[in-house]
């Protein structure tokens, strides 16, 4: 079964880290929500599109050794929960550095990479991963 339609609907947001900001309490969310969990009904109709800068820090991390078959060529690789500078937390792969170099508090920024594909003849999925922010 192809995953194409589900992925496709979220493409623009996943490509560009676009979430929402609650117009009532200013909390930001990624992925988008229809209602702010803190404000409830007060936030209805006030959840506005919000683009994250892609910069953040590693909040927690792990190294994956037993990978999903699509990631077989990349293991071992680092996965981290990233605290974006605007506030929301997202899970992402850290690439372009050794998996064991990744540490809590490390500065990262988003990059555009291939996330997977529907086999050899299916569509290719793209989106964000993170790289170490080098000064």
């Amino acid at each position, binding site marked *: 079964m192809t995953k194409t339609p589900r992925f496709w609907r979220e493409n623009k947001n996943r*490509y*560009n880290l676009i979430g929402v900001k609650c117009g009532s309490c200013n909390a930001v969310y990624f992925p988008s929500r229809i209602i702010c969990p803190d404000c409830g009904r007060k936030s209805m109709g006030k959840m506005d599109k919000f683009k994250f800068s892609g910069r953040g820090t590693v909040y927690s991390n792990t190294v994956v050794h037993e990978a999903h078959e699509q990631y077989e*060529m990349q293991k071992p690789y680092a996965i981290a929960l990233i605290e974006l500078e605007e506030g929301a937390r997202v899970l992402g792969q850290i*690439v372009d550095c050794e998996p064991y170099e990744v540490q809590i508090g490390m500065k990262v920024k988003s990059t*555009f990479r291939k996330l997977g594909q529907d086999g*050899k003849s299916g569509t290719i999925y*793209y989106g964000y991963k993170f790289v170490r922010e080098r000064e």
Partner: protein
Amino acid sequence: MEIGIVSYGAYIPRFRILPEEIGRVWGLDGKGFGKGLMIEQKSIAGPDEDVVTISVEAARNAMKRVDVSPEKIGAIYVGSESHPYVVKPTGTIVAEAIEATPDLTVADYEFACKAGTAAIQTCMGLVGSDMIEYGLAIGSDTSQGAPGDALEFSASAGGAAFLIGSKDVIAKINTTLSYTTDTPDFWRREGQMYPSHGGRFTGEPAYFKHIVSCAKNLLGKCGTKPEDYKYAVFHQPNGKFPQRVAKMLGFSNEQIETGLLVPQIGNTYSGAVPLGLSAILDEAEPGDRIFAIAYGSGAGSDGFDIAVTDAITRFNRKAAPTVREIMANMKAIDYATYAKYRGKIKLSCEE
């Protein structure tokens, strides 16, 4: 109307392999090959990188340097011979990833190593005829040579993007012209993973004939001499060809030095002249004149006479990394890792 480059951005994947490492695996004198080609190392795309991701990173770097809303981009053309899909444009994904959709026209180009410069020419025409305000032209590739083939020592990965427009132009394109013939020096048929080439045939009647003819026609049309240019950049399938063609035309090593990246990254195909030109724009000053000639097998050359304007002093070059800064972030890998990253090893799950 002054048409030219409003911004530019580059991207080169981080991984490198040395010719001696390739030679070690195939029982060839890799060091000797590298010396002959003047290639010290070549860039390799990571397992999650392709022409789409390289093009997006280059385009985003270009957009970071200017305050131009992506909605004002009326056309995106991506030139490559390694588009990930045979049918389904790279450009649509790039357009969505820089938020330029939906009011624009998009198409992918292929003309071996000069598809990126063909994209620049198309954007110039559309801007010049007032059909669009800005056009984005990208040249990028993740080229591969068959294992053990001479091409494996040079075929590499990288790309650059140019925002073409008529406002705040940092480098005006005074003149562009092309020289094209039907020459079967290099090709890849549908469904084939690796390209084929005419061996020695790729030199004289192909690369040299087209670049020299295009360059002479361009100098003639502009009424200029090689010494009128501060910089020159020629297609660089290896280090020797551009040096030889520069000498044939009367350009010095100093003029081609800045744009000659092939010794450090290999032949980036559609990315080659775009990246060389980007490296020149990284350091160019107002009044500098640039001479650029791309070459694509098949075969043809696109030539550009470019003049850097005063606007480059107000241009936010620092908002994105320079080509040489990008090149400095690198990691050498062995052949086994290279084979794994580039799909030269087949897994059962890929069927």
